[in-house]
């Protein structure tokens, strides 16, 4: 058996497990945890296009989640447009906003870019919190918007059980992973990688680094906003503190940094590790130790940055490769 075959088998096995989980896990709580896990893995994978491949650290991605959530929700509640269509509309608005944010900021280096994206993110959150109406659109300020759970059905992107949500976010995650995998192997991927590490050398070779980053930012904000709509339809209540918050932006970056930015598997590994910590600590310690998960995140991040600066994907893929090679050796003998 070749290594590629083993990889393929493992992948199919993973997919099979992911698709059959709802048949065994009947508890709504655990399904909910898994859905959020996929949701965060999706967000981090979208973030990874800019934060990982392009080598800069955006810390304002919740803006795009918020734009996606608010656009589809307002369109469906006030105009009766299906959230599926609102999802695409929100994604395009996020794309335009992403480009607007990127144009002045992507030339900045290191911490300055991170700070500038925080400023944009927080600025927009404060605006949303303080605006009740934009023209005919009812944003409802800090109170947020509740989606009445009346019309369930696929067209309305609203379901009584958790299973449909599970499959929707799972498929979204698989698609976004495939996309980032393809991008990482494409010319754009190489441009981003080269421009992230040695911008001047890349430019001297004729690579338009700024354009590559702008493209990545556009794709990333588009994809992130799609998940915003999912979140709105899943929780049926959005408010600025939930979808526009800095915490959300930070959690995405946490997952990426711990899992391994710039690799396709990193966001998955990060989410698999951190999301259960976050949810279980909220379930078991939420009453007397709220915020415990953030302390754990911080400690884990410090340890990972000290001992595995490229994230946990590196040692894990090394172990995986070693196990496979040993297995191949065994079958050869």
């Amino acid at each position, binding site marked *: 058996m070749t290594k590629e075959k083993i990889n393929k088998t493992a992948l199919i096995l993973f997919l099979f497990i992911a698709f059959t989980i709802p048949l065994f896990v009947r508890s709504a709580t655990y399904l909910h945890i898994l859905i959020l896990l996929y949701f965060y893995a999706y967000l981090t994978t979208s973030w990874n296009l800019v934060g990982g491949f392009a080598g800069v650290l955006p810390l304002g991605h919740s803006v795009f989640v918020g734009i996606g959530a608010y656009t589809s929700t307002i369109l469906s509640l006030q105009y009766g447009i299906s959230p599926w269509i609102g999802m695409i509309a929100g994604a395009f608005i996020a794309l335009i906003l992403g480009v607007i944010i990127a144009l002045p900021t992507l030339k900045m280096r290191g911490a300055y870019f991170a700070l500038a994206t925080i400023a944009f993110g927080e600025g927009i959150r404060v605006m949303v919190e303080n605006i009740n109406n934009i023209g005919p659109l009812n944003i409802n300020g800090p109170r947020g918007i509740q989606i009445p759970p009346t019309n369930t059905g696929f067209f309305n992107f609203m379901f009584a059980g958790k299973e449909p949500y599970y499959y929707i976010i799972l498929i979204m995650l698989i698609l976004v992973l495939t996309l980032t995998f393809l991008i990482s192997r494409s010319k754009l991927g*190489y441009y981003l990688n080269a421009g992230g590490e040695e911008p001047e050398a*890349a430019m001297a070779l*004729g690579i338009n680094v700024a354009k590559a980053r702008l493209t990545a930012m556009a794709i990333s904000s588009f994809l992130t906003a799609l998940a915003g709509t999912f979140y709105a339809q899943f929780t049926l209540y959005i408010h600025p503190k939930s979808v526009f918050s800095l915490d959300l932006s930070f959690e995405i970056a946490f997952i990426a940094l711990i899992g391994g930015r710039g690799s396709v598997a990193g966001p998955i590994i990060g989410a698999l590790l951190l999301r259960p910590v976050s949810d279980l600590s909220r379930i078991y310690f939420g009453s007397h130790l709220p915020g415990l998960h953030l302390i754990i995140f911080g400690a884990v991040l410090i340890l990972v940055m000290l001992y595995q600066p490229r994230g946990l994907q590196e040692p894990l893929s090394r172990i995986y490769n070693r196990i496979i090679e040993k297995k191949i050796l065994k079958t050869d003998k």
Partner: protein
Amino acid sequence: MSFLKIDKINVYYGDIQVIFNLSLTVEKGEVVSIVGGNGAGKSTLLRTISGLLFPTSGQISFENQKINSKQPEKIVDYGIIHVPEGRKLFSLMTVKENLIIGAYNKRAETKIAETIDNVYQLFPRLKERENQLAMTLSGGEQQMAAIGRGIMAHPKILMLDEPSLGLAPILMKDIFAAIRKIADLGTTVLLVEQDVKNSLSLSDRAYVLEHGQVVMEGSGKELLKNPHIKEAYLGM
């Protein structure tokens, strides 16, 4: 008409002027060296030609087209390739990926496989290391990879910034020999060096830069015999 012609350019970093009214020419097929001490403006000159910096006045033309104040990717399209100082390889990519990324422009892209063979012929060591990460190469190998990456772009003129930087004398010889070979195969080379002796002996012509100005020019051999050069750069 000259191949590459630089006419009275002035270049500033912010308020500080680095290049003063500098003119020089490079003819097709030549190896031209620019020598001079630290801070003479050698690297600045190359960065200006490749569009990473813009001159405030003066003109740069290549094959009779004005190219100053064009974006770097445009300049690469004209066939001017700059191999920056300090190698600047993409350390987490393999040697082969580093080479391939050098060929991502319209002229070079269709000929990747062929050019890569040429590079491997010039630097057989790179062939042995093709699947290694660039960060694991030795200094000399990294310099080979950086020059190879420049060749991948099918340059009409290859500009090398201090290819001997930080190399052992024996490796320096290999690199200089390779540069001569590149020129003999038909690529014009503009070489910036601090190693005056080696670069002058392999060049057809050379310019001496001091404080952002050309203070001397001539054939490589002529300059090697010049008393000022001997005293200031060769320590004789």
